[in-house]
């Protein structure tokens, strides 16, 4: 009853406020929706009219299945690495104060202003056989001789995680900041161990942030083009690099459009799937 009243009272101003989104909507329709529609049209039309033949031939080729698998595997690994590093970092950022927080925040946000091409080239140097990573691994006794990580999947995951890490940290940070530290204390005084408190209080309350971060990083890394081009090369194809090759080198616009639609479907599936998962998790809490 009270909820109904609140909704009724809120409806009118919301309608008017919605007009503020007009520029963004107009921009998206013109600059994104329309080209997307053209792409879609090209993907499903052949010389004889409407057809799904391009998709059939795309999925008939085992190489394309390999490309899809590569794309998902790398994106999943990058997302996982970002989550493992980003989650604790978000807490450090949210719970630090004064100068420490300022320095941490700058360290996370400033790198965003460096172009991805520059960063990818920098990682080429770092991941070389005589790069710092290889030398450090020898020093630490992880490997007996310098290992070249450049042009390997591990190197790609390492470089991409570095580039996308802020997109994991910032959404988690924004929810951690809103958590009342007394909730954890309340849990403790009710007899909950630190692990139980994390499981029942901190994790559920940060889940929306985790999910946003995962969707950000996964969508970014599923579609990344420059980083794999520079860090792993042509031998290892992902959907994004395949699109690039189709249009730029093979001049096969049909294959490029089809691949783009597969990538789009994959991204939509992941974003929609994770929102449903999140809602279900929240309900089961």
């Amino acid at each position: 009853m009270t909820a109904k009243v609140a909704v009724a009272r809120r409806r009118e101003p919301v309608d008017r406020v919605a007009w503020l989104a007009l520029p963004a909507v107009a921009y998206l329709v013109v600059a994104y929706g329309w080209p997307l529609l053209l792409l879609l049209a090209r993907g499903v039309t052949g010389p004889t009219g409407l057809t799904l033949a391009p998709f059939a031939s795309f999925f008939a080729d085992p190489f394309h299945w390999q490309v899809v698998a590569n794309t998902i595997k790398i994106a999943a690994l990058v997302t996982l690495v970002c989550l493992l590093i980003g989650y604790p970092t978000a807490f450090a950022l949210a719970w630090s104060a004064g100068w420490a927080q300022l320095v941490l925040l700058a360290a996370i946000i400033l790198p965003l202003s460096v172009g991805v091409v520059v960063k990818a080239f920098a990682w080429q140097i770092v991941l070389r056989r005589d790069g710092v990573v290889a030398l450090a691994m020898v020093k630490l006794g992880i490997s007996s001789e310098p290992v070249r990580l450049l042009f390997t999947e591990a190197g790609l995951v390492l470089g991409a995680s570095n580039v996308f890490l802020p997109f994991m940290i910032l959404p988690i940070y924004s929810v951690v900041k809103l958590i009342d530290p007394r909730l954890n204390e309340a849990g403790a005084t009710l007899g909950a161990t630190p692990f139980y408190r994390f499981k029942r209080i901190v994790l559920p309350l940060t889940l929306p942030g985790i999910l946003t971060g995962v969707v950000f990083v996964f969508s970014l890394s599923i579609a990344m083009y420059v980083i794999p081009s520079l860090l792993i090369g042509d031998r290892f194809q992902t959907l994004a690099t395949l699109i690039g090759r189709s249009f730029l080198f093979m001049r096969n616009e049909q294959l490029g459009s089809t691949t783009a639609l597969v990538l789009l479907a994959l991204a939509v599936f992941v974003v929609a799937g994770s929102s449903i998962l999140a809602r279900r998790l929240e309900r089961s809490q």
Partner: protein
Amino acid sequence: MPDFLRIAGAGKSFAATRVLGDVTLGVGRGEFVSLLGPSGCGKTTLLRIVAGLLRPDAGSVYLDGEDITTRPPHRRDIGVVFQNYALFPHLTVAENVAFGLEARRATRAHTQATVARFLDLVHMRDLADRSVKVLSGGQQQRVAVARALAVRPKLLLLDEPFSALDRKLRETMQIELKRLLRELSTTAVFVTHDQDEALMMSDRIAVMNRGAIEQFDDPATIYHRPATAFVLSFVGMSTRLSGSVVDAGDGQVLVATAHGPVRARGAFPCGAKAFVGVRPERMQLGPGLGRENEIEVPLRDIVFQGSKVQLHFTAAAGDQVVVETVQLPLGFEPGAHIKVGFASNDAMAFAAEALP
């Protein structure tokens, strides 16, 4: 009877600021004790030390005969009702109350029965499946109390739980909480800056000031026999007349004030600067016979408070004269000079420099 909760020589500093200095306090089993003081007096710090949310720099805490000074909060068996209630926003009312039981691995049947019982006790059974985010302040407070009590802690700590409620609701909740704690015979320590709340609810009150306990006594003693000038001025209103001691002996002093000589309880040498404090309801209006003390002062304000009337008088610099009466005598107008009397037994002398 040994103290159920015993705080021995507890001290705490933050950076260079000493928040709590050498506090010793004992609370009996089943007792309701208030820590009363202005903000920054260290009362919340003391509460957090007892709860285990803060480690004292010095001293020890004993509960039920055990030294719990270094024990983590989740193994202390001490419940806390926080000032902002700290309800888990992602859980329902029932899930909040069940949290402590589930954390202690109670059986499902026991948890359900206990949650139902405690929601009944705080009249929240109907709202069991609501999200706590949609509750009013009073309802949130009930859930917080039920959540803290459902695990049957040895001790319940309450950190200003009524400060966010409006006056009417606050009084209802105070009575309810007192009844609930008595029914469950729970030992409780209650932090507040509200003197009325402390006087109304407590078995004993520890009045705190600048990180130390000024007086620890039952409410009537705190009010009628304040041990220090701080207690006199912090708890309740008072008439205050300052001057110097001209005669002393037999536990009484005669203080020469700007309003004439006043006899009061106290032990000060002749010549000492002192002030005399009297509670407003212990002062009588109008001329009377055989009074030990009588002064005449011009009436300044009449404040009607429903069940009582407060009269403020114009007094000498640094002094104040306040009288409380049930019914205002006829013909009292601001500006009129009125005789006011009080017994020397109701007047207490304090060292003048101690006046806060």
